[in-house]
Each structure stands twice: as C-alpha cells, then as structure tokens.
C-alpha cells in the first residue's frame, strides 16, 4: 500500500489499532507463559527484537518514515541484534540470505505481474472495455453503479487491486462528471468492491499472493474457497452502498439526453497502439491459464509470472525501461526488509510463543482458533495496512503448524479476512486510499472518516459475519482443500 495524504483522524484510528494489536500480543504472550509457554530463545532477545518490530510497525502506521525505509531500518537493526544474540547459530550471517531466499517466490510473482499489469493497464484494453460497458448502461445511475461494481471485481481480479482500482476510479470520476452525477456512491462502491476482487484468485492481491505463496495454496483451490465469498461480498457492497446512497443514485435529469451523451462516448480514442492492446490481452490470459496449470506442470507461480512479464516486454513493443521503472520497487524493498525483520524475530522464538498464546486463548480448539484469527484480522486490517498484518501472522501460523495444528483453515481465513478487513476505514486498503485521494484531487470532494466508516463499517460488519459463517461451514463440513 502506498502513502497518500490522509484524513485528519487517521492517526487516532491507527493508534487505537496498534493499542489493540499490542494488547492481543501481550495477552497471547502472557497466556503462553501461563500455559507453560512454547519453546523459545532467551527473553532478552525476544524483547529487543520484538521492540524493533513494534517500532518499525509504528513508523509505518504513523508514516514517520516511508514504509520501505522503515522496513529497511527495521531489517538492519534486527539483523544486528540477531547477530549480537547469536540467534543465527552455526549458519552465521548466511542465515539472512536464507531468510530472504524463502520468500523469493512471492517476490518473483510480484515482480512478474507488476511488469505484465503495467503493460496491460497502459495498453488501453481495460479502458476500452470499460467505456464499451458504460455505453450499455445508457447512463442510468443505478445500472451504471451495478456495472461499475462488476467491472471493479473483474479488473481487480485480472490486474490486481491497485491498477484495477485506479482504472475504475478514474472511469467513475470522468463518467459522473460528464453525466453530472454525484461521484460518491460510485467511488465508495469501487473502493469497497476492489477488496472483494483482490481475493478472487491467487494473483489478485498482494496479501493474497503473500499468504498463498507461503502456505503453498493451489491456484485452482481459490476458485473453490475464496471466489464464492468474494462474489458474495461484492453483492453486499452493491446492496449496502446502493441503500445508503439511494438519493444520490436516484434517476434525475433527462434520460434521453443522457443516453444520447453516453452513446457519443468513443472508446477508440483509448487505443494508442492496437498491437500492444491485443498482445497484452493474450499474454494476460495466457498467464492466468499458466497460473491455473502451474501445479500440474510442476513449476512455481513465480516462473509463470516472470514468463508473463518477459513475454509482455518482448511482444508488446512497450518500452522495457519504462515498464521496469514502473514496477513498484518501494513495495519490493518493503517486502525484503519486512521478511528479513520477521525472519530475525522468528529466530528468537517470540512468534512461536505468540502462536502458543493464540492456541491457549482458544483452548486448543482449531475452530475457535480460526474464528479468533478471523475476527482479529478483520478488525486490525481496517486500521493498519493489511500487508504488515498478513506478513506478521504468516510466521505465527507456520509456527502453529509446526506445533501440530492443521493450519489449512487458518491460511484461508487469513486470505479472506485480511482482504475484506480493509473495507472499514479509508486507510484500510490500497483501493480505499486511491479512491479517496483521487476523488479529492480531481473533484475536490472529501469523504471523511465518519462517512467512510458508515458505509465501510456496515459493509464490513455484514461481510465479516458472512465470511466467518462461510469459513465455519467450510470447517464444519470439511470442505477446505487438502493442505
């Protein structure tokens, strides 16, 4: 997630979030100690490295430093502390490279898809499709709203959440300006539906990719587990926003004149190079097919993503330097720093202790653990960036697995709840941040925390209940795929 100017109350919100997170962490550690604890290193190393991690998260959450820089600083300090405590044992400093090496898969997926998505997003293909679809609405506000929700889910599924949201938000701003409609319901709908799109497939969102890669979740299993709840949660967005903004979505003005105006939209103005347009579409679809069949072929998704990126560069005619420059390098640096930091903290045994604490909190009941994790992630992801939330919980879930628990339900819970959890506040997800920022920049209209919380909070409350029920049903009827 990137940094944007944020509404004034965001620090208070995040402070509350961090306090909540800290409380849960301390409670879990205390519980673990009380329950006899789990194997871990010396307490001093846990405290020092835990403090470094907490300080890094505070710097990220309060934008005291750019999040990539915060993660780098945290990583450097953590490595120094780990070396000082002798946590790397016989492996010595080489252990740091091993830590990073474990996550090369997800970095490869992000790198490859970034290049591919950059080219596909700039080919005009998705702009072209969206204007053609808008033409079918005749400019009727409610139909336009519905189509925008559907397109948002589709584009975020194919392009990942940030570029998908960017295209849809700018479409909504341009179309509503032309048709003299209030942009707010459309922007809110897109911001909230984008998080549903992000959990449709393995490669639809950064959080999804992180968890999927670490847990070894299969691409095709996402269609079985997350796609239905993604679509269901998008229906919730449609219903809630349509209800809350019913006045704004009321059909006003002359429908004939508006339909005439919409018919004059010319999507061919969006096609700057038809060769890039078609080739990027074919490569994108081939990459999705590659993701779906990677397991059968016995290769990793990172290879498919890199092949897709390379093919896009090679065949689209798009400038290689420009495409590679547009890769979200701050995100890559952030991940490398964060993974190193978490790897060092993991070496202290603190995360294993936390895992033991969570298990103790749930009384060792796997269903209760799943539900507790779900609620925790749903709440925390709305307040703090969901990427660090997922990145921290991943090694904890790994530790639970090492303790003998079947963690497959926990992985899926993490995917679903980390993505949907971002819906409650305007800083909870990259989609919300882009949408709120673009609306203010382009139309000088602000969506305050109160207004966002009303729509986002209600949406999340319904989605949360549905998601937890859905996950419970999967658990109860043993529907989760084999881990």
């Amino acid at each position, binding site marked *: 997630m990137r940094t944007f100017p944020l509404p004034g109350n965001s620090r208070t919100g995040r402070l509350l979030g961090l306090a909540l997170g800290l409380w849960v962490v301390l409670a879990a550690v205390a519980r673990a100690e009380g329950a006899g604890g789990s194997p871990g290193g010396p307490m001093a190393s846990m405290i020092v490295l835990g403090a470094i991690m907490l300080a890094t998260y505070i710097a990220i959450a309060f934008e005291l430093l750019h999040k990539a820089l915060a993660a780098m600083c945290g990583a450097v300090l953590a490595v120094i502390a780990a070396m000082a405590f002798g946590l790397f044992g016989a492996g010595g400093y080489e252990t740091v490279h091993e830590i990073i090496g474990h996550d090369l898969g997800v970095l490869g997926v992000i790198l490859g898809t970034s290049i591919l998505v950059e080219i596909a997003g700039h080919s005009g293909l998705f702009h072209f499709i969206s204007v053609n679809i808008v033409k079918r609405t005749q400019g009727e506000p409610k139909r336009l709203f519905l189509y925008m929700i559907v397109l948002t889910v589709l584009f975020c599924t194919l392009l990942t959440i940030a570029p998908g949201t960017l295209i849809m938000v700018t479409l909504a701003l341009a179309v509503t300006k032309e048709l003299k409609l209030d942009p707010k319901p459309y922007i809110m709908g897109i911001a909230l539906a984008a998080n549903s799109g992000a959990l449709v497939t393995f490669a639809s969102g950064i959080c999804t990719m992180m968890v999927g890669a670490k847990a070894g979740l299969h691409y095709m299993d996402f269609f079985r587990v997350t796609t239905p709840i993604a679509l269901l949660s998008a229906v919730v967005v449609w219903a809630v926003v349509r209800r809350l903004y019913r006045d704004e979505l009321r059909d006003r003005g002359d429908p004939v004149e508006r339909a005439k105006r919409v018919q004059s*939209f010319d999507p*061919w103005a969006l096609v700057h190079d*038809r060769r890039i347009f078609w080739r990027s579409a074919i490569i994108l679809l081939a990459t999705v097919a590659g993701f779906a069949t990677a397991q059968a072929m016995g290769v990793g998704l990172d290879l498919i993503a890199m092949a897709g990126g390379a093919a896009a560069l090679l065949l689209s005619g798009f400038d290689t330097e420009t495409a590679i420059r547009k890769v979200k390098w701050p995100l890559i640096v952030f991940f490398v720093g964060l993974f190193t930091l978490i790897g060092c903290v993991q070496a202290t045994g603190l995360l294993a202790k936390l895992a033991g604490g969570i298990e103790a909190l749930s009384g060792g009941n796997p269903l209760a653990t799943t539900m507790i994790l779900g609620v925790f992630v749903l709440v925390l992801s709305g307040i703090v960036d969901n990427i660090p939330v997922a990145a921290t919980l991943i090694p904890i879930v790994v530790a639970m697995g090492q303790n003998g628990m079947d963690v497959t339900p926990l992985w899926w819970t993490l995917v679903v709840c980390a993505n949907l959890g971002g819906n409650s506040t305007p800083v909870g997800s990259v989609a919300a941040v882009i949408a709120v920022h673009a609306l203010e920049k382009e139309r000088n209209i602000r969506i305050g925390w109160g207004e966002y919380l009303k729509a986002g909070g209600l949406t999340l409350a319904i989605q949360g209940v549905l998601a937890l029920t859905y996950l419970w049903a999967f658990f109860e009827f043993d529907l989760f795929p084999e881990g």
Partner: protein
Amino acid sequence: MKHDDENTQDISESMGLFEAALRPDEITLESPRIETVLVAVDGSNQTATTEALGRAAADILEARIVSMDAPPQDQDARETVQGILAEADRHGAGLLVVDAPFGEDIGALEMQSLGSVVDILLEESSLPLLIARHELGDAKATLRNPVLVVDWSPRLQGPPAAMAAALAHAGGEVLMIAVPEPVVLEGIRRLLGDEEGKRLTDELVSRAEVRLSGSLVAAMNKLADQEGFRVRFQVRSGSSLVNAVTDAMGTTERVLIVGHGDHDGGHGLQHARELILASRGPVLAVKAS
C-alpha cells in the same frame, strides 16, 4: 503526510484517457483525391531522389506522374514558383514533389534555409508539398510509414491525418506524436504568473495532449480498421518539438507529415520550416486552411 507523486500521475494519465473518449469532437478524415503527382526537378544531385520519391508517391496513391524541369537556380524564385504552380494547375496535380537538400550536400549557410522556392511554395501553394531531403533507400517503404505530428488545433488535424492514412493504407504504419514543448510551456507559465503558472504541471499538459488528440486517435483507429494499416500514438514530453520528432523518427526511414496554416493555435509555418530543416528524411507539408 506524504503525497505519492507516481500515483497522482497515474490517476491523471488515466483521467486524460477517459476524458478523450468521453468528450469526442467530430473529426472527418476525407481521403485526399490525388490523380496527378507533379515532380519538379532542378538538375541538382538530388534529382534522382526526388524522382524516386515522386514515383513512389504516385504508385501508392494510384496517381499518374508528371515531371517538369524547374528553371535555373539563379532565376527569380518567385517566377520559378509561378511556373511550378502553373504546371500543377495545367495537369490538375494534387501533390507537388520538390527537393531541399539536407546536411553534407550543402553549405553551412544554406543549411539554415530551405531554399527560396520551397519557402515560397510553403506559403503560397495550397497543395501538399512533398520535400525530398537525403538520399533514400526504399522510397515506397519510407512513404508507407509516416510520422504525423499532432498539434492542439483540431482544424489543422484532419488533412494531414488523411494524407498519412492515404499513404499508409494496406500494411503501413502511422506513428502519431504529440509534443508538449518545454519552451512553449515555460512561456505560458510566465504569462500566467507565479501562482497560476505553478498549477500548469507537465502532467496536466500531457493529460491535455492526450485529451485533445483523442478524437483524432479514434478517427484514425477506425480508418485503420477499414484501410488495413497500423496506428500508434505517443505523447513525447520533456524535449523540444524538433528533438522529439527526430527521436521518434528513429533509425527507420519514415516520411514526416506536418500540418500548417495561417490561423493558429497549432503549429504554424515557422514550426513546419523548423521541422523540415531538421529532418533527414522526406517531409510532407500539408496546408490545412
């Protein structure tokens, strides 16, 4: 709190694209009816190149070719032009082909001017003027892959674009480029003053370029569908018009198509002269008034 410039730029780029599609102006691209191509040669060492270019143009446009010897160079240039125009009128020519040597073939002083005949033709003739410059490898391939300089004046866009389409039909490629010139932008910023000038960012200007060119891009795409050629459109920011055009021409031999007119908002005659002077390849100057 920090702003994310990269995302702001992405939002602006995407908005510009949609605005182009949502606010189209009607641009009609009428195929130029050229039945005769008149090639005027003066016996210089450029004659062979000029004739090859004329033959290639006539071949592509399915027109007949008429050649004439232009009078000696020391004669009054205006009389020479009158002679060429009279000949063009007599044959019903729709395209004139002349030469204006480039670079090593001419002296340093001459490099700064196109020669008075070309200068006067640019001002006085309403016919498209194809100007041969450096020696060409494959004249036909050069003409079939034009670079079209797109400007901000919709009135000027139709005729040069229609010429580009006529040359590229059946397999060629039109590369359309729009150039927000730094020197022009700086002038506008100074005019606007400190406060307002700051708001005119490069990003906004690129967005305006995309938006203003949208209708032409749409019209060219549709024509490309019918006529079977390829269209590419690029906004080239950050360099002068001449540098951007030279850069876009690259190493491939392409004809440069420049629209010009007396009224403005778009590239005037001076711009056309600068581009012709800087171009190593042939230039087709199309008057749009």
